[in-house]
């Protein structure tokens, strides 16, 4: 029998006492029938050192109000006998359930944060409090913080167990500032946004400068501040070639001197000419309420795109202008 041969081979190996249970459970009949070669240990059973039975897992001895941070004080792999949760993980086979936690490789592979429960973090904070200074009492709201400290600088320090304390990732410096806290006029703001390109977020009005081109954090920080200064001063200057800005470069639609203005002016002039009313001049025409409304509707149509609102606004204003009501 293959089982008997296997058990014979296994008993020949030293230190395979655990598998003796396997042999006895698998083929008791064959074992008694076929005499297998005995192990070297011929002591009677009561003299052999007793193998310890497997103890019940630690979870059964855990109370509900135990101190969890002492069970998992540091980042450790998942120990099914030490975690009292009935977790299952794995892809279930048909008509089955995910595998239980005992011997589950999937639970071992993933990172766990059992060492960072809220209680543990509270303890860390308590320990760190001795090293902190107090928050200034005057800065008790977000607006005050922003008003007095508009620039936010983010840096990261890395600590790891290893031969060297240096980490190249530690040199990255991120500088964030809201453009509303800078003193910029309309032209300067548009020029700045064009200069920085992707680094500006329109929805939050935040300019983010991330530098990592210098080897040290201090150098990167200086460079980021230098960039901010240069951007600010450059955006205030107006160069010669900025006069050539065409309509395609404009960020938003500007009504004055646009073709829409010309069109409407021509139309109105023709209408007035038809009514033999030649004394009106351009400024008067443009200053009427209907033209104002029309201008607003065209600007919103171009800037926001087409939607029901803008289109119906436009329709109403055109109808009023052309006296179609």
């Amino acid at each position, binding site marked *: 029998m293959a089982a008997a041969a296997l058990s014979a081979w296994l008993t020949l190996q030293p230190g395979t006492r655990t598998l003796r249970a396997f042999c006895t459970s698998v083929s008791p009949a064959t074992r008694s029938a076929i005499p297998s070669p005995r192990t070297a240990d011929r002591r009677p059973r009561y003299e052999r050192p007793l193998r310890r039975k497997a103890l019940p897992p630690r979870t059964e001895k855990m109370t509900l109000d135990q101190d969890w941070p002492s069970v998992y004080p540091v980042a450790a792999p998942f120990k099914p006998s030490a975690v009292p949760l009935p977790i299952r993980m794995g892809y279930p086979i048909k008509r089955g359930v995910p595998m239980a936690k005992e011997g589950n490789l999937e639970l071992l592979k993933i990172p766990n944060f059992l060492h960072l429960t809220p209680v543990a973090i509270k303890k860390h904070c308590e320990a760190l409090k001795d090293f902190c200074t107090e928050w200034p009492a005057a800065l008790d709201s977000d607006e005050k913080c922003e008003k007095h400290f508009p620039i936010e600088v983010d840096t990261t320090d890395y600590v790891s167990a290893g031969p060297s304390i240096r980490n190249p990732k530690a040199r990255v410096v991120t500088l964030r500032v809201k453009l509303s806290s800078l003193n910029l006029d309309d032209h300067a703001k548009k020029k700045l946004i064009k200069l920085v390109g992707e680094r500006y977020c329109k929805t939050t009005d935040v300019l983010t400068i991330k530098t990592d081109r210098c080897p040290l954090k201090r150098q990167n920080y200086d460079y980021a501040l230098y960039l901010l200064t240069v951007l600010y001063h450059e955006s205030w200057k107006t160069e010669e070639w900025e006069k050539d800005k065409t309509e395609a470069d404009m960020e938003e639609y500007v009504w004055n001197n646009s*073709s*829409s203005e010309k*069109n409407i002016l021509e139309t109105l002039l*023709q209408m007035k000419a038809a009514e033999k009313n030649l004394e009106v001049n351009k400024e008067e025409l443009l200053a009427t309420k209907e033209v104002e409304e*029309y201008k607003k509707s065209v600007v919103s149509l171009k800037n926001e*795109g*087409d939607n029901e609102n803008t*289109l119906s606004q436009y*329709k109403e204003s055109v109808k009023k*202008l052309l006296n179609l009501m």
Partner: protein
Amino acid sequence: MLKRVTRLVPRACQLDPGHFLHGGPQAPQSLAARLDDQVPDENPRAGSHPSEDDPVRTFNEACLMVRRPALELLRHLDDTNFAHPAVRYVLYGEKGTGKTLSLCHVVHFCAKRDWLIVHVPDAHLWVKSSRGLLRSAYSRRRFDQPVEAANWLKSFKTANERFLSQIKIQETYMWNKRESTEKGRPLGEVVEQGLTRVKNATDAVGIVLKELKSQSCSGAFRLLVAVDGVNALWGRTTLKREDKSLMAPEELALVHSLRKMVRNDWHGGAVVLALSQTGSLFTPRMACLPQELLGKEGFDALDPFVPILVSNYSPEEFESCIQYYLENSWLQHEKAHTEEGKKELLFLSDANPGQLERLCAYL
């Protein structure tokens, strides 16, 4: 608000509603020649497809549902002040909602009132695969399209027979060394010249449009310019020059003259335009709003215009459409006339006219 004067007839299921009036006759009078037992002034149809599923022949009538956008337009047209520059109306809406048919309704209305109709059934045809592109004799930079121009001249002639002899041209035009049309001759001669000498057809079209524009100001007639698929005029083309580079629409003489026509620097009429995504080149399928289809250039050229939204059927319109089908026994399914069947059709087609027509074609 739904006058049951005329009722809707859907197009055959194979055709796209956008490609409706595909190079066919565009005006009431021409229809009488094509369709049998016709009431003389029915709306324009594309009778160029003699298939059995042509509902015009099936129903022996061409019917049109009177709907709100068209009524609004007609009201405005009635109130037009002909001394003011021509107002431009743009019909827009999703695919299959009835823009082209509303345009046809307006054309029919104006034809009944004796306006002169300049109708371009689908401007997309002029910028797509056309054979026989020639260098224009009139302007070195532009290109002629003799085939399309000749087709259009033919339909223009059938549509406006009466006016062709009345209107006299105001300048002498030299076609070549031997032929010319003198000042004071009727416009019909220019059209004839274009039809017989196909090489000059595009120039003939340009002349016709120019004359009509300048003479409508005098008040002898009312001019209606109706263009379907007007976004083709400012879009892109798929036509290539000799060196295989793509052409811009401005380089086509037909497009150039039509663009001049839809400007509002003339008075004595109106301009009704319909946008169309089906058939347009290089536009996304879901685009249906004016700015998306016209682009910046087109919008600036047409500004200021009155945009008119054509939407899906309202409940009453849907009811009347189903009633029409049932009365003409178009719907053969036994559950079609039940309430459940109607609700199912409403759900499946979402009250979209084009979709409903396609669905009912199977029933």
